[in-house]
Each structure stands twice: as structure tokens, then as C-alpha cells.
């Protein structure tokens, strides 16, 4: 048995999955100020009468870090940046003051300026005096050589609770994002670790001895102990949970669109040959662009409860939500009311829905039915045009080789999975607009918790072999090792696969179920004065996001 829990913004869901079946499910409303209470109510509901010792694994997806960041309930962070020249310092504006210090490495990872020990010691005292207990240290190109970040951590770490290092959070290049990511990690570290302590206590009280995993934004899991070091990896795991849930219910192997229609917003995601598409660099949370590996999702400001109004003779839907639909006693007409009028669904009070839509119809000077049709049509039109845009974005992603440019592999989804309250009523309309066959999966209301329960452990590793300098650098593990001058692409891949396999198993992956994928492999000759002096080999390998089981 597997226990999956998703502590979402509105609801907390828990499911108990046994083999290929959902054995039990529970939904309670989330109390944002007491997440643990919500979690324990949902868990107790599905575990009642069950033997907790039969649990094989527990997976939790939580909005804790997301909420803390979005609501600004974060700790003060000492931000230390050995940045070197480049973008103006004015572009690094965070919630806390930023300290630019001496030292930096270049694009090949070669040290261009050394750290000034006195300067760092001075900063350590400043942090101490200001009561700062968490720091983020981020160097430009630190993914190419992490030594300066590590050295600074050694110098300031002693007097702090925790130091977040840029190179550990992602192997991708993007200094401003790396700075933001490390800052966020440091700013939620204390809050998150406090929560982890509570969760572990609660789990123990329930007599659960199974290993506990946390869901990440990329739809993969990692051990709760690892999450304590990298809490920022847990942001935006909610949408990822839902998408993985849909995947587990429908067993998709082709290009597809997933649309989750909620009350206020509609979320769009894509599968390429059955694999969820990730953001190329990292997810965005609030104003922060990060390097957190996460699913590419787009949130559109229309939903079943969006307020419908008339402005200058034109229908307007959303992005405001005034409350529930009129059919449920809400204050204004909504698309849900229009669906009820059209007989697409039989929920709520039909009379109230009709009255609300009638008011709109009068203003539009058109019959009620026609008005309802226009509301539903317009809502579907908005969603469909955003889907079109997301697909176009993906298809327009730049490529950097002639081979890829001429090959021009395009995403062409012909299947649409619809989840959320208004999924069934809108399925025909959306399917037609998008030219897709539509499926409304079963258990969709608990897809998030199911997705969490069944998500595989994921990890990614970035390797840069510079055979001129005879160094192999792996930022995610913070390692730099010597390699011989004759090191080849095959050697780098072999080393990477071994490391990633070890790393993934440490993070809780099942050795039997490890699907490694080479995401990137490039090899360049380095030439000085017409002579080859070495090779620059770049490899990125991932454990493919996926599921440990598929429901039947």
C-alpha cells in the first residue's frame, strides 16, 4: 500500500493505493495556518481501520514553501555574491540586501579573481550582528567550479544555522535565477524544516514505518531528509501532483494536452510522447524566476466560478471570482451557471442559475439560451487559444544545431485530458476547438494525491569535462575530479550514469526502476593556434519523470 497526500491551497487530499487500485480517498479543506491539522485529518480518514505497517511508502506534496514565498513569510537571508563583472548590480534586487564580494570564475570554471578572506570575515560578523542566521552564497559560473562557494561556506557557516549554495540547486547556467533560487531556499529553510519535524512526529504517532518522500515541482520525489536541505525544490509541486495523477490514470504514450479547470483558474500542461514537459530552465514563482526543474504549466484566469459581466456590450469572463456560482447561492453569474442553463450539468439550483444568466442576457439583448451558449463558447475559446499559445511556445523553442533545425520535431497533440469540476460539461466544446479526442479520467478529483503516491524519484546531473584542464565538474554533487587527457564522450556518459544511479538510489529510487535519459550531449574540440588542445564535453542525464505503477 502507498499513501499519497497533497496539501493544496484549498483542499487536502489523501489516497491509499494498493496494487493498481485506489483503495480509499479522502478530501478535507485546508487550514492554511495549520497545515499539519489538515494533513492529519486527511490521513486519519484514509488510514482508519487499516494496518499502517502494510504501507510501503508515503509521499507528500505540500504548498508550505510555495505559500511562505508567495505570502512573504520568509526569513532574512545574508546574500553573498562573488559575481565578477557582467550585468549591473542593480538587477539583483531581492527582499534582503545583496553583498557583492571579490572573486569569480569564468565560463570554463577558471578562477579569475580570488576571494578576499577579510572581506568574508567582515560579512560574517555583520550577519551575526544583524541576527541573520541563514545565508545564500552564489558565484557566477559556480556550476563550472564550485570551489569558491564552498570556501565561503566554510568561512561563514560556523555562526549560521544554514548556508544555501548556488551550484547545488541546478546545473543550468543562469546567474540571476541561481541567485533567486538559493535565496528562496535559504529564506524558507527554517519554516520548512520546522514543518518536516512536525510531519515526522505525526507519522511516527501513526505507527508508520515506511519511508517518506516529498514531491518536487518536476513530478518526481525525493527523501524527506533531502528535502530538508533543498526545500525550494518542493515549490509548485501541486500542479505537478495533478499532472502525474492524470498520467497514472490514463496511461498516455502520445502527445497530449492536460487541462485542469478549477473554480478561479484553468491550468494547462503538455505531454510529449507521454512524458510531461518541463520548463527549459526552471519554474517561476511570484516575481522570482528560478532554476527549479518543474513542469511547464500555464495558468489562465478563467474557471467555473469566474465572474461573468458585460462591458461595452461585450461579455467578460474572469479573471475575478466573486464566490461560488449563482446556482449555489453565489453573488454573480458564472460559466457554471451557463452550463446548468444549457443542461450540460445538473448540479445546483437551476432556477437561480437561469435568473443569473437572464440578467446577462437582458444586458446583451439576446435570448437566455444563446447568451449561455456564448458564455460557454467564449470560456472554451479563451482556454483553447492559450493551449494554442503554449504549444506554439514549445514548438518555437530555439535549437542550436543544423540537424535539429532541419528535423523540426513539432509537438502535435491529438488527445486532450480534462479534469476539474466543469470537465465533463465542457469536453465536447473544447475537444472540437482543439481538434482532439477528449478523455475525462476517473478518480480525477483525487488525481493530485494519486500522482504524489505513484511518482517516481527523479534526479538530474550535469557534467562538464574539460580535458585541457583535465577536470570533470558535477555541480549537483559539488564534485570536481581529475580526469585523463584522453577522456571521451563515452567515458563522461558512463561516469555520469554511475553517479546519477548512486545519487538516485540515495534519494530513494528503486534500482530496478531507474530509467536514465541523456538529455544533452555535446562535444567540442578546444583549439589554440590551430592545434587541438583538448575537448569540452557537456552531458546532462536525468531520471525520467514517471510513475512506479499505473492504475487500471
Amino acid at each position, binding site marked *: 500500500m502507498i499513501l499519497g497526500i497533497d496539501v493544496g491551497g484549498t483542499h487536502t487530499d489523501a489516497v491509499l493505493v494498493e496494487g493498481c487500485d485506489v483503495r480509499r480517498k479522502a478530501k478535507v479543506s485546508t487550514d492554511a495556518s495549520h497545515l499539519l491539522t489538515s494533513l492529519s485529518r486527511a490521513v486519519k480518514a484514509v488510514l482508519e481501520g487499516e494496518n499502517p505497517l502494510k504501507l510501503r511508502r508515503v509521499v507528500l506534496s505540500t504548498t508550505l514553501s510555495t505559500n511562505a514565498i508567495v505570502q512573504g513569510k520568509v526569513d532574512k537571508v545574508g546574500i553573498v555574491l562573488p559575481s565578477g563583472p557582467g*550585468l549591473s548590480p542593480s538587477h539583483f534586487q531581492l527582499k534582503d540586501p545583496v553583498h557583492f564580494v571579490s572573486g569569480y570564475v569564468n*565560463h570554463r570554471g577558471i578562477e579569475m579573481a580570488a576571494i578576499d578572506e577579510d572581506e568574508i570575515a567582515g560579512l560574517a560578523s555583520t550577519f551575526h550582528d544583524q541576527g541573520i542566521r541563514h545565508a545564500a552564497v552564489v558565484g557566477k*559560473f559556480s556550476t563550472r567550479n564550485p570551489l569558491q562557494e564552498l570556501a565561503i561556506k566554510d568561512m561563514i557557516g560556523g555562526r549560521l544555522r544554514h548556508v544555501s549554495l548556488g551550484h547545488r540547486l541546478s546545473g543550468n547556467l*543562469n546567474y*540571476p535565477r541561481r541567485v533567486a533560487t538559493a535565496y528562496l531556499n535559504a529564506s524558507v529553510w527554517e519554516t520548512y524544516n520546522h514543518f518536516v519535524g512536525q510531519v515526522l512526529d505525526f507519522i511516527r504517532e501513526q505507527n508508520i514505518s515506511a519511508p517518506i518522500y516529498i514531491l518536487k515541482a518536476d513530478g518526481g520525489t525525493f527523501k524527506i531528509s533531502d528535502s530538508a536541505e533543498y526545500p525550494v525544490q518542493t515549490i509548485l509541486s501541486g500542479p505537478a501532483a495533478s499532472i502525474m495523477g492524470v498520467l497514472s490514470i490514463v496511461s498516455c504514450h502520445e502527445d497530449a494536452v492536460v487541462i485542469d479547470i478549477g473554480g478561479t483558474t484553468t491550468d494547462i500542461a503538455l505531454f510529449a510522447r507521454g512524458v510531461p514537459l518541463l520548463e527549459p530552465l526552471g519554474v517561476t514563482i511570484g516575481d522570482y524566476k528560478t532554476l527549479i526543474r518543474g513542469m511547464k504549466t500555464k495558468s489562465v484566469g478563467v474557471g467555473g466560478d469566474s465572474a461573468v459581466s458585460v462591458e461595452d456590450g461585450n461579455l467578460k469572463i474572469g479573471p475575478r471570482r466573486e464566490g461560488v456560482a449563482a446556482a449555489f447561492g453565489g453573488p454573480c453569474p458564472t460559466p457554471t451557471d451557463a452550463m446548468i442553463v444549457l443542461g450540460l450539468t445538473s448540479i445546483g439550483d437551476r432556477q437561480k442559475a437561469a435568473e443569473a444568466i437572464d440578467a446577462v442576457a437582458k444586458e446583451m439583448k439576446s435570448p437566455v439560451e444563446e447568451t449561455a451558449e456564448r458564455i460557454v463558447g467564449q470560456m472554451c475559446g479563451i482556454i483553447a487559444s492559450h493551449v494554442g499559445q503554449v504549444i506554439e511556445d514549445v514548438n518555437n523553442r*530555439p535549437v*542550436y544545431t543544423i*540537424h535539429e533545425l532541419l528535423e523540426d520535431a513539432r509537438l502535435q497533440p491529438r488527445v486532450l485530458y480534462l479534469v476539474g469540476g466543469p470537465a465533463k460539461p465542457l469536453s465536447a466544446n473544447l475537444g472540437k476547438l482543439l481538434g482532439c479526442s477528449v478523455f475525462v479520467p476517473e478518480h480525477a478529483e483525487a488525481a493530485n494525491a494519486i500522482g504524489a503516491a505513484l511518482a517516481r524519484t527523479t534526479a538530474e546531473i550535469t557534467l562538464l569535462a574539460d580535458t585541457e584542464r583535465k577536470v570533470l565538474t558535477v555541480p549537483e554533487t559539488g564534485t570536481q575530479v581529475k580526469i585523463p587527457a584522453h577522456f571521451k564522450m563515452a567515458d563522461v556518459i558512463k561516469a555520469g550514469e554511475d553517479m546519477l544511479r548512486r545519487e538516485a538510489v540515495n534519494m530513494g529510487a528503486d534500482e530496478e526502476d531507474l530509467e536514465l535519459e541523456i538529455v544533452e550531449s555535446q562535444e567540442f574540440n578546444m583549439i589554440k593556434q590551430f592545434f*587541438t588542445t583538448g575537448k569540452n564535453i557537456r552531458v546532462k542525464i536525468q531520471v525520467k519523470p514517471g510513475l512506479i505503477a499505473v492504475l487500471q
Partner: protein
Amino acid sequence: MTKKKKKTALVFFPAFDWAISPTHPEREERLLYTQDQIFEEGLLDFDNIVEYKPGIATVEDINRAHICVPDAQSVTMEPHLISAGGAITAAEKVLSGQADNAFALVRPPGHHAMLVVHGARGFCNINIEAIMIEYVRKKYGVKKIAVVDTDCHHGDGTQDIFWHDPNVLYISVHQDGRTLYPGTGFPDDFGGPNALGATINIPLPPRTSDEGFLYALDNLILPILDDFQPDLIINSAGQDNHYSDPITDMRFSAQGYALLNEKLSPHIAVLEGGYSIEDALPYVNVGIILAMAGIDYSHVREPDYNSAALKQSDDISRYIEKMVQYIGNQWKQRHAIKEKLVGSAKHAGRKKNIYYDTDNISEQQEETVRICRDCGGVVTIDSTADTGNRIFAVIIPALSCDACRREGEDIFEKTEKGKYRHVYLQDKDRGVYLAK
């Protein structure tokens, strides 16, 4: 420092799977470290910098700018079509109003490719700026265009293609041809008889630094542009004037390049040469992109930058001042010089020997232009290469007058194929290209 932000389109195509040959400077990793620096500085996250995929240029696009022997397919490969396509995409973004300016950061370069193409010279097969220019003239009807070529090598190809064209002002600032390939581009090379002054060459002495480049910009290039009033300014943005470039001898810096770009404010920049792939290109390109987008670039600097060591000598400063004055005077007297030069002649001719260093081909050309006060003048070219190919071409200029059109069509009709592999008619005005 607050600047006005501009929407900048970036067409970045490093062609990581193509090289002229394994150890050739024009090889796979030429833009590798530039990519690293652009990514690491997070430039693509700025809302006003948008990256686009390059298009692929067509044979029709090439035939608007070149006479390829025997035909466009034979002298190009996919990389050339993508590089030219990238330049076209950049121009499209600006002229369609999607961007204020655009930078085509593409390879291979093109400014040594001349009107007639028998093969590759100076790492170039086809001239990507010229193809772009003819494209925007055809598609958007742009009339007056200025090209400022800041590559360290004289852009002899671009000069050749627009030599007779009064509507394309070609200004090249480069290392003195007596000290560097291709050995041309002197102040008295001033344009064809119908287009005198529409070619400006500014050969700078070796070891010229930021000061010298910016002096020429402020005191010569910008005033000439002000007189010419172009509808479109293009920067052939070669980056081999950099002090670290391995095949040139200049002392320009990333700051200098960025400042030049800010002052010149081109609508479109197209990468040309530049082979200091580790020490210059990453910083120069970041500087140019920031300058184009109107973002503070004052903190961009090469790790080993040392302004004192790079300072140019007083001799160089004096030399440049004198040359700038000479060229400026010539520009002011261009109409008078033209009257004197042309007199009552009906046609003017010149003979050229052209060497294709990359493909080791020699070509002899005889070119004739009809003296015309109403347009660029119809041009005929008789070209023989040691590949055994001899061709004859008639070029009717953009915005041609009736007399030049009639003469051009007449010559094309009457010229027998006979000894020629092909006889071509390139009608730039109507976008027609014929070969027999």
C-alpha cells in the same frame, strides 16, 4: 544609469554541428562560450530581449543578391542558408514592428562574398547582409539603407555588391589593408561612378584602441549618416577588432563595442568575424546585446581588461584625425568629384582579379556600368574562373530607370550562350532572375 529600454530580437544560431574543417577558426565551438555567457548572465530572461529561431533562406533570396556559378544550390550548404535566413528573420522582426532592433548572432559570416560567387572566400560563401538587404527592399520597399561594417577585415564582398548602388551606403571601418586580409578598403575607394560617396572606407592603423574607433564614429560615421538619412541602419558586427583576437592586431574592447553600438543605434546587427572565442566573443556579445536593448552595460568587462596597457599611441591618434578629416572632405565634395570623374562618358568599366582563399579559386572580371543620373545604372559582368567556368551577367539595379532597364534587357536578349556556361539576368527592380 537609466536608459530607454528597447525591444530587441535575438536570433541566436551557433550551428554547433558545423565547421569549415576541424581546426578552422570557423568551427563548431565558435559561439559556445558566447552561449554560456549569454545564458549565465540571464539575458534571455529580460522581457525586452526575445529569442527567435532562424528561418532558412531560399534560392530566390540568394539570387536577389548574387550571381552564383553555376547556380545557388552548388555554392551553398544548409549552414549558409540558415545563417542568411537568420539575418532575414532578424530584419523581419524589426520591419514587421515586433521589435525595435535585432541582432542576428549567427555563423558562418558573409561579408567577403561578392556579387559573383564561384566559391568561398574569407570563410564566406554567400553575403548574409546583402541577401537580407535585398529581401527587405523587395518585401518592405525600404529605399535607403546604410551598412556600417565594424569587422576588422574590409568587407570587400559587401562593397562589391553595392558598389554601384547610390541607395545603399556602405561604410567599413577596418584594420589597414596593407597589414591584413583582404588587403583592400582604402579611402579613395569611394563607390562606383553613379554612386560616388556611397562607399566609405576607413582603414585604421594596427593597435588602434577604443579611443580611435570612437573618434572615427563621432567625427565621420555619424555625421555622414546624418547627411545620408537612411531608413535602415545595419551593423555588420564583426568582433575581431578585439585586443585578444588571434588573427588581427587591434585593441578594441567589449566596452568599446557596446558604446559604439549604443551611439550607432543600428536597427539590425549581424555577426561577422571574430575568432577570440574564449576571451572576446562572450563579453563583446553580452555588451552589444545589452547596449541594443538599452540595458546598463557599464559593468561588462573582460577578465584581463587593462585600459592603460591598451591605450593607443599619440601617433595613431594624429594619423586617425588626419584620415578622418581627409575622408570627411571627400564626402562633402562627392558631387563635384563625380562631375569631374564622369565627364561625358556613357559607360565606365573596371577589371578585377579576385582570389577565393577558402576554396583556392582565381577569377578575372570585366565589369561595365552605364553612366546614369537617374538610377544606379545597368551593370554587365564577364567573369572567368580557373574552375573553367565563364559567365556573363546583366544586373538591372533596384529603382532602375527606363533607359537602364531597356539596355539591360536588350543586352541579355542579344548575348548568345556560346562560350559562356550561363548568361544571367538579375533584375533587382522587379525581382526577376533568369539564366540561359
